């Protein structure tokens, strides 16, 4: 692997994906957002709305057990059926969305808050500081993310806070790389030189001149980060290492339906479909926005 943290092109023979991205149908030719942008966005609003307002819009209690209706397929009383304990699958999907969305949004924010300054400092000061930061990040990356998460959950136990923070830590490398690259590309611009000649110190230059330019590409990556945070949280809760057991989560529901896959597949399949659509939507919306901003940035340079 060519060192991806330096600003040099990865490798002369390595392809850039930008050509590919521009041809993708979701991007739209003249920058107009198509149905591949609005439809996923609508889905995300629907999911967020029901998750936030679940108790007030007639969603059942996700923990109430209906012993008469165990593992019933979808019907009028239970739109998506019930699981092996007679709990309403729809209610659990909606309440599970709360976990996924909280972790999905908060973890990238944690990663951004820590990774952005680290990357900017590395890019701005260069030299030994840069070398140290890049080296540390490389070391951090030597342990695969999921392994690190499992390690954290072993030591600190599984809870919403632990999962969010440790997942957030995993986002530090990617965010600091993006902000470092952006900082490097703006560092030698005229407006930085201008700020310095009128006597701005390093801190002022970093916060007032560079930050507004760096924040855009970082935010553009944000939604894609949300999608991957949801996937990883799903993996953790699938393994039973995220939020504790009776609490509904998508990964946990998919895992819970495993033993009943043959006679009542709906227990696993519905949360899987909802999770797939949500991840796909974040990817589609995020990718559209990212290619938009990335193009703007390329044009600006």
């Amino acid at each position: 692997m060519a060192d991806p943290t330096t600003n040099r092109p990865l490798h002369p023979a390595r392809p850039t994906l930008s050509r590919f991205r521009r041809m993708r149908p979701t991007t739209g030719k003249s920058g107009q957002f198509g149905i591949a942008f609005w439809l996923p966005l609508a889905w995300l609003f629907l999911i967020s709305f029901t998750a936030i307002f679940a108790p007030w819009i007639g969603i059942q209690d996700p923990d109430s057990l209906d012993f008469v209706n165990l593992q019933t397929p979808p019907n009028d009383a239970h739109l998506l059926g019930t699981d092996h304990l007679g709990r309403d699958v729809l209610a659990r999907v909606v309440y599970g969305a709360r976990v996924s969305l909280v972790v999905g949004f908060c973890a990238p924010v944690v990663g951004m808050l820590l990774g952005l300054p680290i990357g900017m400092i590395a890019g701005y000061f260069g030299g030994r500081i840069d070398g140290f930061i890049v080296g540390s990040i490389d070391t951090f990356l030597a342990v695969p993310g999921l392994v690190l998460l499992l390690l954290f959950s072993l030591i600190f136990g599984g809870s919403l806070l632990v999962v969010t923070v440790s997942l957030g830590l995993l986002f530090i490398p990617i965010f600091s790389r993006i902000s470092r690259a952006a900082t490097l590309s703006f560092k030698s611009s005229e407006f930085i030189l201008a700020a310095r000649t009128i006597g701005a110190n390093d801190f002022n230059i970093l916060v007032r001149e560079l930050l507004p330019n760096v924040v855009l590409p970082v935010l553009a990556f944000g939604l894609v980060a949300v999608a991957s945070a949801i996937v990883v949280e799903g993996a953790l809760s699938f393994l039973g290492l995220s939020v504790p057991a009776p609490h509904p989560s998508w990964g946990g529901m998919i895992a819970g339906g495993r033993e009943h896959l043959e006679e009542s597949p709906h227990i696993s399949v519905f949360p899987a479909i909802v999770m797939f659509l949500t991840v796909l939507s974040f990817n589609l919306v995020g990718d559209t926005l990212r290619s938009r901003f990335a193009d703007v940035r390329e044009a600006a340079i």
Partner: protein
Amino acid sequence: MRYLLKRVRRLVVVIFAVTLFTFLLVNVLPGDVAYDIAGQDASEEEVQAIRADLGLDRPVMVRYAEWLGDFVQGDWGRSFRTDEPVVDAILSRFPVSLELMLVAQVFALILAVPFGILAAYRAGRTVDRTIATAGFMSLSVPSFMAAILLILVVSLNLGWLPTSEYEPLSAGLWANLRAFILPALAIAMAEWVVLMRVLRADMIGVLQQDYISLARAKGLPVCHVILRHALKPASFSMITVLGLQIGNLVGGSIIIESIFALPGVGRLLINAIYARDFIVVQGVVVFIAFAYVLVNFIVDLLYAVLDPRIRTERADG
């Protein structure tokens, strides 16, 4: 040569840092092993005795130095639960993980190469867009979800591949391989997209070269030109990515191994975590990190061997 030395130095530093980090994490932070072993109703004296027995009452850095010394000599400690030496536990399970990884990459290649070529050949057309969309959707399916859906559709509904127990290679090639088909497919679902995109992007570049036009002008059939003239130069980056993915997969197949009950390194780690078997967790994490860094190192070197520009460029950087 200078390049090689620089890379080796970096490799050693990273490995050292990973061992230190893992050791500190497992040993300093809450959740003392001694309490775990002693059980819930153990008295404080019993816990202290176990602690002294394991040497946990000494300073952390002393223990780290000692552990590192043993570690270098191949003594990674013994499991608290099963008393099995950690090195043996890992090495006996590693072939399973390796086989899963290889089968998965073969599946990924089987999907990536034809679709990548097709997408590049018809770049921007409907076929290309369809493949891109399919890839995008495929990437949005988490591997554990793919695994569950594959079990549901292939094993239960179609009844093609009943979820089978893992059989060692000595039980016959097919008996051994069939247990890997579904887990490998679940992993390949995401991997193939990355490979396909890289191949497509390179292939588009290669197809614009003059010698391809010449070959076509000579009247050679499209198939022949693509497979014999274009595929090789276009697959260089893809092979690199393939190598990097192998590094990722060493740790990435944890969930798949545990879903399909494959006795690999990932399942060893998960079970050790459920059992709070710290010594095994520590060993596996270091092993996975080591494998990952080593694969990256080898890919890096291959890069330098294949492209002399890198050797000079990076030596000073």
